[in-house]
């Protein structure tokens, strides 16, 4: 897998649909001024409450592999907008994801956008042009 992990800092003014309201302040966990794009293999999709989690295996420049955890909204909120795990996220396929990085430095991020293997952009937290994958 071709390594692709570029860190880009943005002063991001994110927008989000009302359906994606978290039950705690996302600001407490993720820094929306620090957005990165990762590309890797989807290894696990956890369609659970309170937040959907995706796991992506991303190969680093030194050959090591990092398991990134990507956090989204709740499954009920995704269901309400017609975003289902089965239709959009396939284990073993390669996705790109722009994420707001975890403040504690762990390999976690809050999803902004996915680029699916078939070229669709799923802009869950649009970025007013600040999202690398946003259209």
């Amino acid at each position, binding site marked *: 897998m071709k390594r692709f992990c570029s860190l880009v800092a943005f002063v991001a003014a*994110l927008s989000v649909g*009302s359906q994606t309201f978290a039950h705690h*302040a996302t600001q407490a966990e993720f820094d929306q001024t620090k957005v990165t794009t990762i590309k890797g293999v989807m290894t696990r999709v956890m369609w659970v409450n309170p937040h959907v989690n995706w796991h992506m295996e991303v190969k680093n420049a030194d050959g090591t592999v990092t398991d990134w955890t990507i956090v989204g909204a709740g499954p009920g909120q995704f269901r309400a*907008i017609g975003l289902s795990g089965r239709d959009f996220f396939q284990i073993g396929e390669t996705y790109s994801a722009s994420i707001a990085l975890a403040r504690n430095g762990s390999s976690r991020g809050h999803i902004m956008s996915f680029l699916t293997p078939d070229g669709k952009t799923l*802009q869950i937290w649009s970025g007013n042009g600040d999202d690398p994958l946003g259209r």
Partner: protein
Amino acid sequence: MAPRLIRYGATVLSAAVGALMMTSSIAAQNGGGGRAAGPAQTQNVPTPRTPDGHPDLSGAWGGAGGGGARDGSPFDEKGNLRLAGRYRKGNPVNGERDSGISQRFGPNFPLYKPQYWDKVDFMDVNGNVQDSNFHCMPAGVPRMGPPVRILQTARDVVFLYREKNQYRIIPIDGRPHDPVNSMDQTYLGDSVGHWEGDTLVVDVVGFNSETWLGWPGYFHTNKLRVIERLTRQGNTLLYQATADDPDVLLKPWAMNPRTLQLNTNPTTQIEDPPCIESDSANLTTKERG
């Protein structure tokens, strides 16, 4: 204490602020069941009744967790998804913070005895730790809101909830509270129901002190007693709940009533995935909106 005194004085302002906030965000924090309903006729529909003459509350109510975009599809013709923000500057952080403001300053909040406002403040400020609902525990009654589906027999009613796939089986045959269950101190308490005219009245006692009445630190004790009233008229269900906790509240608190429409969508579903909380260990501030 001071912040709470300000809160008293700001009631008029808070009413205005509350009116500006989107109710959907509040519903998201306080339990489901009050969302947009599926198709249903609301007028000139007779209220269905059971053979014993009581209104039949059976049915799916409100959004019931069903799928489908509420405001049109956010997908374009090529299948790309773009969710549009509806918050100040389109910023979700503003949305979360505004939601917190609207819930803290909403015009309808429990009135605590003066000596308990400091505890409310503490619970609020430390809500990421203190709010058990944040850690995947049940929201409790009445914070969990009205049921998304009701099954009714002559002997009992069954309330189904989308949140954490919970259910309550409530006898309506006139029996008193179960002497054991009502002393167990549980998340959902011990419920018994009876009819007052066409209204089903549910009396709930036996709560633990883990759940809250509302997101802004509105704690209660295990002396909490909740009275729920459900009234069906045609395809509309009115849900009202009053919480009384004389140890800490100055007077019973009536939660904002919810009016739900019968959801006739045959694909309505209420199943909710399990709750696996993984955020707490990664929070770096106390902020929660």
